[in-house]
């Protein structure tokens, strides 16, 4: 089954003709994702390696039945691109773009949330359901199909942990990078809910980092609603207080939001936390009986 990105996914790529857009679109298609269209205003009628390009998302949806959009446009145009996808009736928008102003995303989120339109990201690596489809920039060759659902705020750290699991022979149902920006569309709780309902997923791994209290809220949710085993990892144990470590989310404010506080909150609610990526992978493998 997998979550978010499945065999039903019909992908339109906004910004397909950019360098990165073309590169990752073709990688996604090569992996097996149904990439049905691309959008670049003014390039309607062209093709990218056989993929038809349209001037607007609405045209692409009408012509190809696209139901998922991947946004690969520069930050100052990204909010417009997300609105365009939403207005065109796309059900899932995966926004890879990094550096979108927080106020833009606040407005976008306020629009999408009450309408039930799902956004993954922004500033996220996308979602990969190994063996089925890949939407985004996750390096798929590292991962194999399996029963571990993996959700993470951090892109490359996700790969790291997924890679460690793969080393131990464990595959994934879906790997979801939710992004680390101040305003993101899909939260830990959203991903946990989807994994809990997904028959393929047997064990869930959530990868957090310092800052905010999303991991704590997710832990409450696990205690109340998740029956599958959940393992965790928190990055930023040695980050100095008050220093920004690159994510707006990774700002320690006072005592809450520290790695220690998050680890404690998770452990108290039955989520076992590994002290480094290798350890968490070993804990999962043990539970999975490998």
């Amino acid at each position, binding site marked *: 089954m997998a979550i978010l990105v499945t065999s039903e996914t019909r992908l339109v790529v906004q910004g397909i003709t950019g360098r990165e857009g073309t590169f990752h679109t073709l990688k996604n298609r090569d992996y097996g994702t149904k990439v049905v269209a691309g959008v670049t205003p003014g390039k309607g009628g062209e093709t990218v390696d056989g993929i038809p390009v349209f001037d607007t998302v609405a045209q692409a949806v009408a012509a190809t039945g696209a139901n998922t959009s991947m946004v690969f446009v520069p930050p*100052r145009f990204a909010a417009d691109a997300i609105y365009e996808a939403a207005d065109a009736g796309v059900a899932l928008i995966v926004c890879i773009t990094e550096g979108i102003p927080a106020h833009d995303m606040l*407005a976008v989120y306020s629009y999408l949330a009450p309408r039930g339109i799902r956004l993954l990201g922004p500033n996220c690596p996308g979602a990969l359901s190994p063996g089925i489809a890949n939407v985004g920039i996750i*390096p798929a060759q590292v991962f194999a199909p399996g029963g571990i659902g993996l959700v993470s705020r951090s892109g490359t750290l996700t*790969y790291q942990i997924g890679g460690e699991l793969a080393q131990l022979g464990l595959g994934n149902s879906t790997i979801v990078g939710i992004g680390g920006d101040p305003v993101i569309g899909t939260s830990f709780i959203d991903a946990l809910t989807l994994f809990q309902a997904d028959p393929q997923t047997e064990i869930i791994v959530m990868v957090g980092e310092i800052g905010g209290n999303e991991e704590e*809220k997710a832990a409450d949710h696990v205690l109340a609603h998740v029956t599958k085993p959940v393992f965790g990892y928190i990055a930023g144990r040695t980050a100095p207080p008050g220093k920004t470590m690159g*994510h707006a989310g990774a700002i320690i404010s006072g005592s809450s939001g520290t790695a220690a506080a998050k680890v404690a909150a998770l452990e108290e609610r039955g989520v076992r936390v590994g002290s*480094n*990526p290798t350890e968490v992978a070993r804990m999962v493998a043990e539970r999975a009986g490998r």
Partner: protein
Amino acid sequence: MDLYEHQGKELFGAHGVPTTEGRVATTVEEVRSGAVALGGGRVVVKAQVLTGGRGKAGGVKVADGPDDAAAKAAAIFGLDIKGHVTRRVWVEKAVDIAKEYYLSITFDRGEKRPLFMLSTMGGMDIEAVAVDHPDALARLHLDPAIGMRPFFLRRLLFAARVPKDEHRAVGSLIEKAYAMYLAIDAMLIEVNPLVITTTGEVIAADAKVTVDDNALFRHPAIEAMRDTAAADPQEQMARERHVTYVKLDGSVGILGNGAGLVMSTLDVVDEVGGSPANFLDVGGGADADKIVTALEVILSDSKVKAILFNIFGGITRCDEVARGILAALERLTITVPIVVRLDGTNDLEGRRLLAEAAPPNVFAERTMLDAARRVVALAEGA
């Protein structure tokens, strides 16, 4: 990006938020002439530093005219406030304070809405007020889909128990502050104290403003306010080159792609007994030139004894990273050992490039943990 009080007040002025009239000064003489220009009466001299607690540290003084202001300023210039050396002061007309309120507009990422906080118990430690008198600190989220409306102001003002006859003036200030919050892409606007004067005026007597770095492209005037002199020179160099760098105290230089992976790398280096010299995230899709730049930034710290490259390529391509390392070895004089761990997009090609060039001080490792152990051993052996 954090703004100095005087910058925040300049923006207040531009957006119609009533605030104090004043002058920036970098010398005692400028303080004197500033005080004269403000009418020669009572003024307040305030250290301009990007940290709290300057009052307790002696960075804020009331003066009875230009000469006294100059004298007071002389004691403030050079004052070290929590590691921030005072190079600038703000001289402002003193106001006759009847009451001190507290106002802030913050970006609440949990609720995904702006959070307004208002209290009639301002001027003091607001965190203590929040704990000791939670009812005295009104908190209200604004729904961005509704926007600022009269009912929102009413809810906030009634909840904070602001007297009815002040609703119009305080409400108007809050409305303008929020318009500014939107206009400048602020992440925080804090006014403490918000002063009610003895004549009933409402004035923002302090200004703490933080602007979203990601939005500075549409605010060149604010970007130009950045105080490059006060920044750490290495961090400044990193910023100019668009890599995220935080200097730390250890000996192991660390470079990775993605904040989470870099933080985790720091943790693992610490766990195996090393001490990180820095946090450096080259970001997504770094090319060879950016790798060279990042190495320059790391090497500008003389404490660095060994460097760890921990790359898991997604949008970043490992072959580009390998090319960057080889280019840096040609262009820069690098004597410290470099441990390289490459995984993900184009990793085979990246490893092949390094193996073929085989520079003497570059060591490849296949896992993060092994790479951390190796770099710590090399840093200690150096």
